[in-house]
């Protein structure tokens, strides 16, 4: 079967200590998958290693059947909001245009056509009236939406998003969910690092439970079980029982 994301035996070690151990993940095309696990489980590391930003000790990453290095233009990345300095002297439209740098290639600068495209994807996240706003003046949720718009403008087939729901208000959360559903409708595949276990069944089709090793991955209804969660989170009973009280899908 041709998977959109096909990660095999991915292993990453920092100074001999494995942070990601022999991880496999297969995601079919057009699926929203949540990557779930406790802090330090290697979620961000897995995404960064998949995107070649961290050199893995072992493993391979195929995107739609071909090595990631040949498929870069079809993969978009939404890093954690806190990974950049938001006091950088630039505005919203400029940041979104950065998503087009890959297509532009060396030396060419974004022009009118690129600005129009950037405006379109700003509109998709409901931020078009902020186009000329200085990025230091954005709220956390607005920063997140700018990053999403930057990924949308890449018009990729596969999206990796690192904690897009982190610290955003209810309005932005709804906007992001809507956006994910639109991407699914267009047949895109989206892998999202997610922290709120309660919303996993509602927002996602598949889930991957990760804690250095892959505990489980697959359709939410098969994999998102109390046993698996206990294995992932190390049997924090109070926490897990609070979860089992939540409505099941």
């Amino acid at each position, binding site marked *: 079967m041709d998977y959109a994301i096909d990660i095999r035996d991915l292993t990453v070690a920092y100074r001999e200590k494995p942070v990601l151990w022999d991880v496999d993940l297969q995601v079919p095309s057009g699926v929203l998958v949540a990557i779930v696990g406790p802090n330090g489980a290697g979620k961000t590391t897995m995404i960064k290693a998949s995107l070649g930003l961290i050199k893995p000790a072992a493993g391979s990453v195929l995107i739609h059947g071909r090595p990631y290095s040949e498929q870069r233009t079809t993969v978009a990345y939404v890093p954690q909001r806190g990974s950049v300095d938001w006091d*950088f002297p630039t505005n919203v439209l400029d940041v979104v245009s*950065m998503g087009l740098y890959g297509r532009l290639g060396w030396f060419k600068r974004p022009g009118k056509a690129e600005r129009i495209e950037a405006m379109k994807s700003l509109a998709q996240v409901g931020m078009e009236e902020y186009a000329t706003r200085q990025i230091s003046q954005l709220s956390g949720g607005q920063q997140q939406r700018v990053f999403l718009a930057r990924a949308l403008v890449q018009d990729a087939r596969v999206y990796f998003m690192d904690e897009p729901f982190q610290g955003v208000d209810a309005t932005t959360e709804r906007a992001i969910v809507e956006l994910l559903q639109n991407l699914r409708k267009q047949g895109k595949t989206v892998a999202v690092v997610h922290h709120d276990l309660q919303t996993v069944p509602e927002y996602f089709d598949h889930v991957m439970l990760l804690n250095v090793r892959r505990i489980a991955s697959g359709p939410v209804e098969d994999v998102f079980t109390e046993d698996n969660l206990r294995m992932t989170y190390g049997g924090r009973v109070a926490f897990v029982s609070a979860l089992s009280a939540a409505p099941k899908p």
Partner: protein
Amino acid sequence: MIDLLVDLFSDYTLRTVALGSALLGITAGSLGGFALLRQQSLLGDAISHAALPGIAIAFLITGSKAPLVLILGAGIAGWIGAALISVVTTRTRIKYDSALGIMLSVFFGFGLVLLTYIQRQPNANQAGLDSFLFGQAAALVEQDVLLIFVIGSAVMVLITLFWKEFKLLSFDPDFLGTLAYPVRLLDYLLTTLFVVAIVIGLQTVGVVLMSAMIIAPAAAARQWTDRLGRMIALAGLFGAVSGVGGAVTSSLIPSLPTGPTIVLIVSGIVLVSLLFAPNRGLVFRRIRDWQAGKRLRVDAVLVDLYTLASQHSSAEYPHSERVLDVMSTISGPAHRTLKVLKDLDLAKPIDSTKWSLTPEGVRRAERVLKRQFGGTP
């Protein structure tokens, strides 16, 4: 003043020194903008100190004091210093700032040892190498300026060419990596330009103060604008202005050294920018806070008066100042604010102690309450 202008164009030494310092200021200032944004301000200091042994070794090998030879030596040593900092940070548990400190002192110490050794040599040619410590702008000749011009222009062309790439490298290098750009290579390129901009300034400003030429114009420029293009241009301009300013000032006042004077002028620009730049300047922010505070106090007393009057039949029912003082414990005595209200025609004194709202004051109080609570209290 006219004499000075004539001198600037006719006096060989002054013209050469001013032109050289200006070109240097532009190059160092523009690259400093990127260094500042990449939070690598201190890298310039480490590189310039690391360049010192390179100068000494270049002299020891060639026996020549030709600027190109010494600059080449300085550049290689500075580059090795920068590369070692990067290696130490990524391969060991030593943090970036410690790695900077280590390289800076190790290279600088080694450079001083070599300089001392050279000075003990029975060779008349060695004199003047120590001028690289604090710079000796007055010794600049046309050839030096030409060299600074050629190298500086090359640096500026490369910045223009790789503008988009350097911008994203400074803002979000990981994202640049996912777009299939060779981040490592671009990082090396920018660092190399950085080294080049530093070593061409060593003769003029010296190893010890050169980092000021990198950081200060950029830090000042950041205060005035929120756009990268303008910031880099402004940093270049500030660099050039301090270069010329330093050259002219030190030519007017005998025995004033040019390099340190340049640095003093650029520091002055930083100070003015920190204080007076719109939006980011301290003075501007203080005024804005004060105005906001005043508006809040006015609104608070207005709402107090309105709340008191709402216990009575008329919204314009008067109340004494003492009551308002008690109500506005946070914002202080109400007297001055009441005077402001009177000037704005929002409240009026009834007798020596009592105040009431005007119809306009009632309307404004209702608007404030609606904004704050979405209705009356």
